[in-house]
């Protein structure tokens, strides 16, 4: 056991840090560190910079254009990017559909989609949840019926993150209603620009247009857009779920947020002294910091073991989102009444929500509310607990 990074890992960190320092656009990092909303272009610009350096696909194997980094290297990369205020990499293409295409897709699909994901030419979104099936994914109703050389898709997806930017959506659709629910599901790649696809915004808690409903009305999808075999979509979706859980932990971003929280606590006052010196707030902050430190060690423990994380990775999802939510709450609390003013303009374009409140205060309550989603998405924390209870604890 040696919990120090190796000299190689340290050198790697230095290399990443220098690159990010030199290339991350200041206007973008200012938005991230100020908790402002990012535009599509902000994400794409940064992704293209990484692509240019060959670092866009940290988790991909080299043969597909990935970095071939170890899991620990990937974590270091994530941490350095997060610390500097880089935007998160939109995961739907890079970390979600890509591994499925690599593992189960046709050669043609690999040749077509993987390069366009690397280059950020295609923006992907995820078509899993439906109004009637959230946690119980297998009950989904969107249907794809074969007609000649294409499927005709009808139905509705919901909770589709950033669908308004998307060029492609990967969907779970029902291709067979005569078999057991899990067995009639297929994995389809659909062009968002195809006729019959409509996107309707759902506004979140904080009035952000981040998720959507996506309607399919007689949408024609070429048969070649089926991934793998018909009826195997459930298997592919489960494969993907395992990929999602470690990434969702968010240790890098939480460390950055903790640092920002400490700055705020140093600036805000309570009882006529800095909030950071208030014993009650100190305890609360330190407890979250300790939880995060333990979580970082848990993540590294999982990542540095050579075996692929199994269902116990659900622990990372649960604790990771608990820490994230605790941080957003403490940040809001640190502001006191200055958390109250709300301004969409301020969140989107910068500035303060109220003349007498500091700029950094403007997005924080909204962010607290927005972050309630983290214990719901990616398999709600209740579903994660079910998974652990059954697959790890054998209950």
């Amino acid at each position, binding site marked *: 056991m040696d919990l120090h990074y190796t000299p190689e890992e340290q050198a790697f960190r230095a290399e990443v840090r220098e690159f990010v320092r030199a290339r991350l656009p200041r206007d973008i990092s200012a938005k991230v560190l100020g908790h402002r909303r990012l535009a599509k272009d902000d994400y794409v610009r940064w992704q293209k910079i990484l692509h240019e350096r060959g670092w866009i696909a940290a988790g991909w194997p080299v043969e597909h254009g990935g970095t071939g980094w170890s899991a620990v290297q990937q974590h270091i990369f994530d941490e350095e990017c997060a610390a500097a205020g880089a935007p998160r990499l939109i995961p739907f293409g890079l970390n979600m559909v890509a591994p499925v295409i690599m593992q189960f897709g046709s050669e043609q699909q690999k040749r077509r989609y993987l390069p366009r994901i690397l280059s950020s030419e295609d923006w992907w979104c995820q078509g899993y949840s439906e109004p009637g099936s959230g*946690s119980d994914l297998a009950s989904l109703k969107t249907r794809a019926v074969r007609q000649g050389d294409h499927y005709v898709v009808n139905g509705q997806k919901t909770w589709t993150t950033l669908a308004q930017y998307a060029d492609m959506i990967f969907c779970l659709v029902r291709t067979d209603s005569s078999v057991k629910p899990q067995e009639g599901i297929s994995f389809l790649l659909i062009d968002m620009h195809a006729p019959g696809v409509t996107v309707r915004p*759902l506004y979140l808690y904080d009035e952000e247009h981040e998720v959507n409903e996506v309607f399919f009305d007689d949408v024609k999808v070429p048969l070649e857009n089926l991934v793998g075999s018909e009826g195997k979509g459930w298997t592919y979706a489960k494969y993907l779920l395992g990929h999602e859980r470690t990434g969702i932990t968010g240790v890098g971003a939480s460390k950055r947020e903790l640092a920002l929280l400490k700055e705020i606590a140093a600036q805000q006052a309570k009882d006529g002294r800095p909030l950071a010196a208030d014993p009650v707030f100190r305890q609360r902050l330190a407890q979250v910091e300790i939880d995060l430190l333990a979580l970082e060690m848990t993540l590294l423990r999982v990542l540095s073991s050579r075996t692929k994380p199994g269902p116990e990775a659900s622990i990372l999802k649960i604790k990771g989102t608990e820490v994230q939510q605790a941080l957003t709450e403490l940040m809001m609390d640190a502001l006191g009444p200055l958390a109250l003013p709300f301004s969409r303009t301020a969140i989107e374009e910068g500035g303060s929500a109220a003349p007498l409140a500091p700029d950094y205060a403007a997005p924080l309550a909204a962010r607290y509310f927005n972050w309630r989603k983290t214990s719901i998405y990616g398999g709600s924390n209740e579903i994660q607990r079910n998974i652990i209870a059954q697959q790890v604890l054998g209950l």
Partner: protein
Amino acid sequence: MDFTLSEEQQLFRDALAKFVQNEYAFEARRKIVASAQGWSGEVWARLAAMGALAVPFAEADGGLGGSGVDLMVVMQELGRGIAVEPYLATVVLGGGAVAAAGSPAQRQALLPGLIAGERQLALAYAEPGARHDLHDVQASARREGAGYVLSGRKATVLNGATADTLVVSARTAGARRDAQGVTLFLVARGAQGVSLSDYRTIDGLRAADLVLDGVRLGADAVLGPVDGGLAPLERAVDLGAAALCAEAVGVIEQLNALTLDYLRTRRQFGQPIGRFQALQHRAVDMLVHAEQVKSIVCLAASAAQSADERERRRAVSAAKSLVGRSGRAVAKEATQLHGGMGVTLELPAAHYAKRLTMIDFWLGDSDWHTERFAAASA
């Protein structure tokens, strides 16, 4: 020991409940919140007509001479609809300060108009950097001739932009955090040197930041004793906190009802999700929160106007502390139990959860009131 409402209170409650239910449905509220003013003049006029605005004021001032419990009844029902009209700001806080400290002439000048629904008030006591401390006052009132000149800054003034008259705390003596030396003043919103910036708050209300730059006031603008404004200010804010807690009861009960309804109707894995024991137990904890809050709010309502300062502080701070903790817990659980839809503005739940959470940020948060309770209970 009697927890029942009088027949009159029950009738009034039922009338208000019906009014809120009819006039303040989800879509109607959405429109009101999005309007330029941010609240509805029509609803306000109806509240005036129902006598709701007269509740806490003495009969001599044209009021109904209602008790803290009467106020609780009103606020609970407003909370059930998460109404955004400035009842708290105008009637309880601003009106409360005038009632607590005003001379007969001041009361006569302000309260009948308020009760009639024609005049809006606001209480500008909070300063940036003062967090929840009423005595942390930097705004200054300098004597000049028979009057005063006010300068300073007041933050998150609830209903500031639509108030005709602002009750402003300013320092006439002493250092920044001294308890002595605070004086209340009546300031017309349009007075020279007053600048107001109106904004939305995240829980759907309107507040304003206020900059006072050499505002000249006559001697008749002084509300209550010079240098001794902290006591009436605290009384008004305590009444406001008790009322806000009562609002929270309405919000919690409605949010719990919405959540139960969702648990009963939303199906996953072939059954209503309310059949899952883990969710059932959490729903029970939400009920326990609701019952505990309801109980302590009765106590706060009963003691909110008590002459015994320690009793008043203890009861109000107990309630506000518990409302802060339990309200946040209920809001989180309601959101989580609603799943994905719980974090969108499509369903009422998110709106209730936002208001419920942010109630902890107005008029002293849970930590602040817990410490105040401890001090009053020593």
